[in-house]
């Protein structure tokens, strides 16, 4: 499996990497042309993109915070995909994770715990909720033969709507209504439950999630490449019948791998609330799960690929927002670039495979 990393490191040696580079260059060139067409000056727009990504501690930190979410969802995707499972439910797993983390953080018993625990318990609640959301899809697959693409997609919409409902009702998570202008969102979570910022003095919003995610990626790599569970995932993915004959409980592996993928999504959701947003709003996860899914899909099974893809998309999104605010380039241009990247990279990897097969 070639990862994005090798694609960047050895561009000319294999065709797939070459095609991928062509895809990236074409998408970016199209994007630049659109920027030139829609904004007064392409240099202003590029300057804004630079300012919005590496220009300040704030911009860099918020790009990394986005990348954290994409990386966790992407890592979950490739872990489950090793067992030939396709988890498209990252968006919903983030949503329930964020919701349960908020509920835990707003509970006085929990926020009153000693400092570390007050932060840890909501984080684990979100992780657990996401894990259950993923495990349900795995369980349906094992017990009822339900295709996990379909169940995780449906569970995503259900998860998003549960968040919507939770912040509409005061009986659930909505802040007390003091006037008709009270927004449908939760109260801000107490300080004790917030994730510590790493470089607060410089104004960077980068939180503890960044090193935790790096650790998760390293752990994920070890599990996939070195552990017995990693081997079982591969065996079940390759041939579940043979795996069962070899004494592997394939049903357990399916449920467990979906649970882990979901838990990583739930953790990402908890981090979004506890690290940056501090209150639950409907649609808080909008697009994050699908971007994370794309990162996972493009990583070709490699945790290093997940890391690089997550960083690319994190900076792309942040730079795009900055271009809209300061250079008045419509954010839609970034959507177009991202859409083109996804479609052309997916096509490039297959086109290359065809040509290699033909030659």
């Amino acid at each position, binding site marked *: 499996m070639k990862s994005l990393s090798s694609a960047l490191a050895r561009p000319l040696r294999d065709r797939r990497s070459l095609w991928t580079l062509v895809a990236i260059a074409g998408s970016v060139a199209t994007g630049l042309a659109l920027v030139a067409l829609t904004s007064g000056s392409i240099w202003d727009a590029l300057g804004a993109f630079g300012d919005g990504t590496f220009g300040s501690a704030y911009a860099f930190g918020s790009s990394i915070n986005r990348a954290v979410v994409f990386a966790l969802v992407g890592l979950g995707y490739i872990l489950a995909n090793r067992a030939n499972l396709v988890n498209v439910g990252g968006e919903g797993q983030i949503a329930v994770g964020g919701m349960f983390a908020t509920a835990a953080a707003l509970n006085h018993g929990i926020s009153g715990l000693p400092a570390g625990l007050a932060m840890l318990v909501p984080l684990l609640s979100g992780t657990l909720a996401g894990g259950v959301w993923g495990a349900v899809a795995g369980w349906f697959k094992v017990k*009822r033969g339900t295709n996990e693409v379909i169940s995780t997609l449906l569970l995503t919409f259900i998860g998003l709507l549960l968040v919507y409902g939770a912040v509409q009702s005061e009986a659930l998570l909505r802040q007390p209504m003091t006037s008709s202008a009270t927004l449908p969102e939760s109260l801000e979570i107490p300080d004790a439950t917030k994730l510590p910022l790493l470089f607060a003095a410089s104004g960077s919003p980068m939180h503890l999630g960044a090193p935790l995610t790096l650790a998760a990626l390293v752990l994920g790599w070890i599990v996939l490449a070195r552990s017995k569970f990693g081997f079982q995932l591969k065996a079940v993915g390759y041939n579940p019948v043979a795996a069962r004959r070899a004494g592997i409980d394939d049903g357990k592996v399916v449920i467990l791998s979906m649970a882990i993928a979901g838990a990583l999504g739930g953790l990402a959701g908890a981090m979004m609330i506890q690290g940056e947003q501090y209150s639950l709003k409907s649609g808080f996860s909008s697009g994050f799960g699908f971007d994370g899914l794309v990162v996972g899909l493009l990583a070709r099974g490699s945790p290093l690929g997940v890391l690089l893809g997550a960083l690319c998309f994190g900076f792309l999104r942040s730079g795009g927002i900055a271009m809209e605010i300061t250079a008045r380039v419509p954010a839609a241009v970034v959507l177009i670039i991202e859409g083109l990247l996804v479609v052309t990279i997916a096509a490039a990897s297959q086109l290359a495979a065809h040509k290699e097969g033909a030659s």
Partner: protein
Amino acid sequence: MIAEHLALFVASSLRLAMPLVFASTGELVSERAGVLNLSLEGMMLTGAFFGAWGSWSTNDPLLGLLIGVLAALIVALVQAWLSVSVGANQLVVGIGFNILALGATTLLYREVFGALSRDAIPGFGKWHVPVLGDLPWMGTALFQQTGLVYLGLGLLLVTWLALDQTAWGLAIKAVGEEPRAADQAGVAIRRIRYGAVLFAGGMAGLGGAFVSLGDIHTFTENMTNGAGYLAITAVIFGAWRPGKTFLACLLFGAATALQFQLPDMGVTVPTTLLLLLPYVLALLAVVGAVGRTAPPAALALPYRRG
């Protein structure tokens, strides 16, 4: 009073179900042939925008409709090439197209319509069917809709018959269930899959144009707002069968209509429950809690000989 509310409810349920009926009928055929188009949402949005744009610039809703369908067909053609000929991952390509369509229509909308954004565009008026439209309450409920509603119901019926009664239908289902056997029997797999995806694209384009031209008479950013995913959900809940899928669309349309109508009648129901209904029902259906259903065996799997 009750009869009036009921007639209004039936009428708006049908109207709100129609975009789903168009799109899910097309997607059903494509999925039966083994190709999953998550890009349905993007195709609908494309149809909605280009339909509005065409109607606005030609001042003729019918030409607008054709332009909308044509635009969606172009998206479908690229989707078909990537799914069938290139063999790219259908999930990735579909999600990519949805992002692309959202970006492209939003950008074009701002560039083309600009300040005109709130203006109404020429759309399809309601058609008061002679005689039937005057029936006591059935008339208001069923026979005072835009002509597009009857077009959609007609296309559904034709598709249903074609799928169940013709050699084409048999070939489509064979390609989706047992592509290898179908290939050996001489069925042109690529041609059928291309045709099925293009049909899905055309129908999604109609469904999208229905939203902008048949219902609201304007375009807004991300106007279809998940209708494409809901149409896919209807296909799942409908167990990949035309009749059941149509009923699923009607049910989803009714749930949406209730969201607007119940508050009007002074009934308070948590809207979340109504919004959740389609997805929960579809989930129950796929896990076999309400009758066992299984997707076509070769769904989303590219076919390659050898």
